[in-house]
């Protein structure tokens, strides 16, 4: 018992802080309908702000804490309420992208400001303490625990008694109705965001002394709150708090029992294990649902005239063919771009065509990377065979992820896939099936009879051929029967099921196809440089993929090409555009992109109005009769009217 006690104490203390963060997250989710993936990033942000004030500018800690909480409770909350309100009733996938963008943006900003190295965080609370059967419990721990518990239950009690609590429950279901009963929905939401942000900030400040100041660590540790929320079924505040304690205890005990390889990956993955178990075991109807969006994710696609399409494709291919003669030493950047194009193509098929979100796409790529290495260096198979096998081995992994997709959709699928990605990183990457203990694998370039791919130029053309083939297949799928079924599924899976389609088979197929192409891209990536480490395939990369894809629009081919250029080619030319800047820029632009998607009608309306007013100014412009119908078809039926 005595050697268990220290683990119990740390577990309960850290658990109460996870619980506090979780309560804030559930509150904002239930009030605004937006599950904030950036919640942990808020906690990280507050820890850094506190650090700046207290350590850099020598502000006494109570004042520093007060200022930090005030900033988050007022300014940050205001910004978040504004952002989530402007999202309106967009499909859930877009909401997920928005908050993922928030996460990336904040983390990128912190990296830019403070660097990526770990900094010691001052123990501002008293570290002296007392003994319980030989185990020291510090006053800092006691204060943290009491503060977290009092805040969580204080809020619960307050909401039960105060009118605001009822209003908060009402606002997500029907803001208009709430407005009619003389309660401003905006004010209610603002209150929720305010409380949620303060809770996140508080947990960040209190967690930082034990963890040290590291943006990634803090962002993902408060993501432990996800596990807590899952136990609270994303709706109950007290259960979420208890869930936090459970997760904290389980993680702490896991560090005691699973300290040696191959199990030492388990402790950091505990919250996601909890999350996955809850998501897979509890019937999906028990989770709160956002009102289904009536809007289509895909804009009405008017197929391009055949001649224009052929011309554009020809020009594009020609441009890619002359790349090696033009770009000189930057050729590897372009090879990377081609691989990214395959990754984004496979992701776009999943996200835009079928409307299912995946936050673990980098894990599929990683499977391709490691399989390629095992097949070539391990088994000595020919390069081409190994390439195809790399794709095929990723297929069952894709099928595995399709299991949550069958049960869950929207937010919960996003959470489950994120959990899966984290599990892969902590538990499977270090095993010998994947990267092994060194966390690094290697694979050769092909030596074919007709091509010596050790030269970048020849390898480029080989990758170009493979990438074009992959994109042709992906586009063919999207325009074929499966593509039609997928597009219909993104809007109304119920209809397809009641007409006899086995929608689960459809879901399975698209995940398998997507994983296959991601695996191929991974195989090409490791082959290009000869080696690959785990670093580019963690969950943050998956989030980055989604954010970059979202900012490139919701079309399949066009968005994939643009996203590949942005993620792989542009940073190769702008050397100052480093990882921190990329994360910050892509995160911010992704948030902006979701607002553009949300305001598509408004923007279309603005363009129409603009055209009309400019027509009035220029009497020689075409008559309204010709222009107006075209503008009208561009505007979609407003959601409110279709209801």
């Amino acid at each position, binding site marked *: 018992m005595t050697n268990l006690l220290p683990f119990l104490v740390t577990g309960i203390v850290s658990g109460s802080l996870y619980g506090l963060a979780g309560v804030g997250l559930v509150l904002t989710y239930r009030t605004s309908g937006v599950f904030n993936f950036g919640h942990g990033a808020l906690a990280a942000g507050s820890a850094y702000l506190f650090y700046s004030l207290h350590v850099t500018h020598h502000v006494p800690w109570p004042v520093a804490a007060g200022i930090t909480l005030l900033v988050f409770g007022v300014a940050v909350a205001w910004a978040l309420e504004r952002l989530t309100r402007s999202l309106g009733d967009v499909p859930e996938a877009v909401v997920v992208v928005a908050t993922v963008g928030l996460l990336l943006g904040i983390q990128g900003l912190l990296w830019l400001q403070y660097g990526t190295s770990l900094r010691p965080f001052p123990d501002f609370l008293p570290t002296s303490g007392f003994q319980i059967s030989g185990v020291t419990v510090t006053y800092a721990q006691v204060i943290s625990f009491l503060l977290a518990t009092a805040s969580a239950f204080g809020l619960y009690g307050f909401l039960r008694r105060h009118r605001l609590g009822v209003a908060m429950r009402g606002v997500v279901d029907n803001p208009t109705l709430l407005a009619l009963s003389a309660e401003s929905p905006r004010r209610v939401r603002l209150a929720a965001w305010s409380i949620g942000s303060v809770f996140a900030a508080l947990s960040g400040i209190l967690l930082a002394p034990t963890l040290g100041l590291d943006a990634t660590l803090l962002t993902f540790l408060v993501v432990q709150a996800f596990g807590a929320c899952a136990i609270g079924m994303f709706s109950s505040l007290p259960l979420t708090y208890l869930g936090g304690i459970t997760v904290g205890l389980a993680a702490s005990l896991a560090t005691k029992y699973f300290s040696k390889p191959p199990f030492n990956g388990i402790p950091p993955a505990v919250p996601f294990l909890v999350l996955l178990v809850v998501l897979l075991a509890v019937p999906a109807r028990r989770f709160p649902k956002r009102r289904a969006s009536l809007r289509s994710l895909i804009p009405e696609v008017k197929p391009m005239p055949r001649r224009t399409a052929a011309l554009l494709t020809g020009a594009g291919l020609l441009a890619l063919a002359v790349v090696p003669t033009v770009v000189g030493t930057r050729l590897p950047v372009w090879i990377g771009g081609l691989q990214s194009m395959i990754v984004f193509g496979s992701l776009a098929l999943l996200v835009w065509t079928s409307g299912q979100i995946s936050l673990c796409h980098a894990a599929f790529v990683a499977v391709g990377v490691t399989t390629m290495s095992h097949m070539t260096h391990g088994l000595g198979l020919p390069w081409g065979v190994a390439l195809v096998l790399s794709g095929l081995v990723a297929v069952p992994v894709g099928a595995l992820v399709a299991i949550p997709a069958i049960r869950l959709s929207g937010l919960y699928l996003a959470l489950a896939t994120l959990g899966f990605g984290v599990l892969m990183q902590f538990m499977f990457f270090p095993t010998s099936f994947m990267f092994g203990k060194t966390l690094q694998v290697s694979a050769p370039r092909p030596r074919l009879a007709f091509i010596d791919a050790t030269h970048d130029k020849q390898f480029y053309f080989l990758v170009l051929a493979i990438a074009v083939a992959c994109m042709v297949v992906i586009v063919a799928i999207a325009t074929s029967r499966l593509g039609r079924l997928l597009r219909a599924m993104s809007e109304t899976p*119920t209809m397809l099921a009641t*007409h006899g389609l086995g929608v689960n088979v459809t879901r399975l197929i698209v995940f398998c196809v997507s994983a296959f192409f991601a695996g191929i891209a991974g195989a090409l990536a490791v082959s290009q440089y000869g080696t690959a480490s785990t670093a580019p395939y963690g969950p943050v990369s998956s989030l980055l993929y989604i954010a970059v894809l979202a900012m490139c629009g919701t079309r399949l081919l066009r968005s994939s090409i643009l996203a590949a250029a942005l993620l792989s080619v542009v940073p190769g030319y702008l050397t100052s555009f480093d990882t921190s800047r990329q994360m910050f820029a892509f995160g911010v632009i992704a948030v902006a992109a979701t607002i553009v998607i949300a305001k598509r009608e408004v923007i279309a309306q603005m363009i129409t109005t603009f055209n009309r007013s400019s027509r009035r100014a220029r009497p020689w412009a075409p008559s309204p009769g010709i222009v107006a119908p075209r503008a009208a078809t561009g505007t979609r039926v407003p959601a409110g009217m279709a209801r």
Partner: protein
Amino acid sequence: MSLEIVDVSVHYGGNKAVSNVSLQAPLGRITGLIGPNGAGKTTTFNACSGLLRPTTGTVRLNGHDITHRSPAARARMGLGRTFQRMELVNAMTARMNVALGAECPLVGVNAIRQVFSTGAQRRAVEEATTSALELCGISHLADRTVGTLSTGQRRLIELARTLAGGFRLLLLDEPSSGLAEEETEEFGEILKHLVTERGLGILIVEHDMALVMAVCQYLYVLDFGHLIFEGTPAEVQASELVRAAYLGSEAVEVAVQ
């Protein structure tokens, strides 16, 4: 072939939405299911098409017990349905929406068919789509995007979609809501044609009494989840019980005219 539900009850927690309801919808007949708001009509419908499992009771199609079959399996056995809140793919054209109705039962759970289509399949889908569009009189809308159409036109597309699927028994959930008067009349004519010419069976939930009395050959009346009356439209109109529960004297007079 007929759809038959026996002693079906559906409970949501402690709330009994439907209690011990039995009804039959054979081929060659338009069967109506009527009742005031909240009587349990849509719940009964969802139990028929498999969107929810009845707490007790059995659902039979063609003599087979399908109570535990999925909606898709029921559809492949010949049971099609439309929705009160229309389930259309707004970003697609009317033709593509209707074609989905033909494709879904064709491919079912067959993974290969979901990905690859043969020329013969494409022609069959094309044919079914064209004839369904014609039958519902919406061929002129075929290439319009569904999201831009009126409610009445969208209702017809839903009907065409179930027709293209070749279902023998159709469950229509409030098909006339949102339709103008003459649109409703046309809709009724189409339904009658389907039953007399094609021998389909239709079970219809409907609020528009004029339509119900005009097209249905047999009616079931639900109130508070209980079946309170069944019989021909004339018998239903004559029933004091139904009048008291639901129709109200005015509505009956209108319907009789």
